[in-house]
């Protein structure tokens, strides 16, 4: 399996169709010719504490529409906490989170979902009582509207709705190449596939912003390559903005357009993979540890 981006014909990048970008001032073009849109989410001086412990200290960065943004750092660097802040699950004591041009108030988890933010979890959080397709279908929950009465009869509108969304889910299943396990209970699936199903579920929500919490944790090389390919394809096919946490440097460097490096809750660097890789602080704090 090779990565999709590796053999693109570079010089003819045609830009992202569909959702065009609002303020061109902040646009930029990636090395592989994708035009990235304006800021979709901005973190301003975020500080998060658990009791006395400081998980994140005065971190600020932004995520642009259509880009793949990576947050990396050694274990305990506050990556997951950061994701939970972006996700709205944690509410920082200081700082503001701006999403799609609005300062975000503290919200209930389901309100976050309604805002169009989907995520996967570091330790997989699938619904183990259900099959793959059912799990993916749960992603459509918010888009299904038919009332109790129709649900009860399961004919006419309710059935049509069910069918319509089933079709959408099947497209995603096809996209992530998990047809063979369509009707298998997720509990019995190998780890790698479960991760893929979880991604499928998140995609089913058609999110504005997709958060991936260590999407490649505990995968072998081949699975990692597959996963990277899928992440790239998702970003390209659906133009989805993706923010991902990962500690495997090499993977991130292939995937991400821009990288934020955290260490002990502090931001060490923010920039393109190359810039970050050259950054001395990062090398000391992180790469040093790794190699």
């Amino acid at each position: 399996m090779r990565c999709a981006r590796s053999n693109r014909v570079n010089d003819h990048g045609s830009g992202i169709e569909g959702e065009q970008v609002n303020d061109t001032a902040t646009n930029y073009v990636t090395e592989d010719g994708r035009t990235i849109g304006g800021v979709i989410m901005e973190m301003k001086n975020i500080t998060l504490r658990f009791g006395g412990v400081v998980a994140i200290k005065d971190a600020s960065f932004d995520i642009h529409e259509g880009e793949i943004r990576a947050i990396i750092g050694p274990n305990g660097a506050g990556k997951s906490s950061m994701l939970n802040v972006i996700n709205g699950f944690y509410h920082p004591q200081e700082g503001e989170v701006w999403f799609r041009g609005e300062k975000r108030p503290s919200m209930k988890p389901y309100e976050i979902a309604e805002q169009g933010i989907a995520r996967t979890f570091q330790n997989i959080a699938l619904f183990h009582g259900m099959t793959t397709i059912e799990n993916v279908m749960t992603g459509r929950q918010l888009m299904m509207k038919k009332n109790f009465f129709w649900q009860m009869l399961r004919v006419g509108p309710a059935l049509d709705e069910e069918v319509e969304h089933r079709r959408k889910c099947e497209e995603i299943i096809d996209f992530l190449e998990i047809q063979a396990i369509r009707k298998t209970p997720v509990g019995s699936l190998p780890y790698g596939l479960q991760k893929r199903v979880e991604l499928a579920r998140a995609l089913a929500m058609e999110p504005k912003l997709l958060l991936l919490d260590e999407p490649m944790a505990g995968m072998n090389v081949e699975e990692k390559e597959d996963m990277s390919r899928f992440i790239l394809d998702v970003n390209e096919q659906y133009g989805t903005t993706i923010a991902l946490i990962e500690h495997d440097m090499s993977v991130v460097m292939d995937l991400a357009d821009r990288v934020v490096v955290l260490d002990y809750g502090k931001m060490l660097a923010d920039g393109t993979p190359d810039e970050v890789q050259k950054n001395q602080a990062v090398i000391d704090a992180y790469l040093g540890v790794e190699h």
Partner: protein
Amino acid sequence: MFYREAGQFKATYQEDLQAFPIRQDKIGIGIWLAIAYLYIPFFGIPGLEYGFALNAIMIPVLIFTITTLGLNILVGFTGQISLGTGAFMGVGAYSCYKLTSYFPDANIIVLILASGFVAAAVGALFGLPSLRIKGFYLVVATLAAQFFLEWCFIRIGWLYNFNPSGAIEVPQREVFGVIVTGAAAEPATRYLVVLTILVFLTVIAGNIVRGRIGRSWMMIRDMDIAAELIGVRPLWAKLSAFAVSSYYCGVSGALMVFLWLGAAEVESFDVNHSFLYLFMVILGGLGSITGSYMGAAFIWTFPIILKEVGKRLFDIDPIVMENVSLVAIGVMIVFILIKEPHGLARLWQLIKQKLRIWPFPH
């Protein structure tokens, strides 16, 4: 072994979304229905005295199946424990009693189905705490419901029209000229009414469970945080579960009094019954509709069978056998939980799977 699935392919999602996509299963269901509707009402159960077969076995089993379906929706599909089932049935029974004394001429079946809504409302009310509290704490909440309602059934004379005996007695009612309730009602009639309501409610339960709402319940059950992050509103998911569950319990309660017991006091709705129904759910299989049937049938008939066997073969005092069956059921609960936490339904699933891939072992 009996399955011949080769050549059964689905060209539309509608086909694929059926309750029984496999032809052989459809046939199987057909057979069951045929027996239930065409054989039993006329001939009862082979080897058993007709009246006994209907009054002591079929009718209660069918009614408790409805209860179990309801409780299963709450415990099995939504993962919220409840020990208030008995009381919720009571709500159904008493409200049906009140309704029929206010509308003596109304169609009793309609009233029975209507009384379920009262139960649903009460259930939802006592379900409210489930938003803040989980697990065992919720048990306490449902017990509160149980005992508070029991108290109401005793203290609020209005509920039983201030009948000095404190009991509710079922008046005779006709539907389209056929006597359905009261002493004069034919067992067959009552059986058929109960059966039809059960079938109706089963279909509905099956539909809901397979749809959006059912999924939201199971999401809450399997991983509530993930569910919320996907956009499920716990309030609606849980309350709807409580309401639907209680509706089923309410209807079954009304049926229990009006088409089976004929009269009832608070004892018929006490906490011990709540346990009984919980057993039916556990043994039958958490989160399984088929299981609800199995559980109800098993828990109800097992003691009877034991008693009969004890009396006929070894002529053992029924009281003793009663206790033996108590112990036996307890043991079985524990055993099932250890061996197959998903109950008889899962066992059936496994058998079916074996049959589908026969002669291969896996």
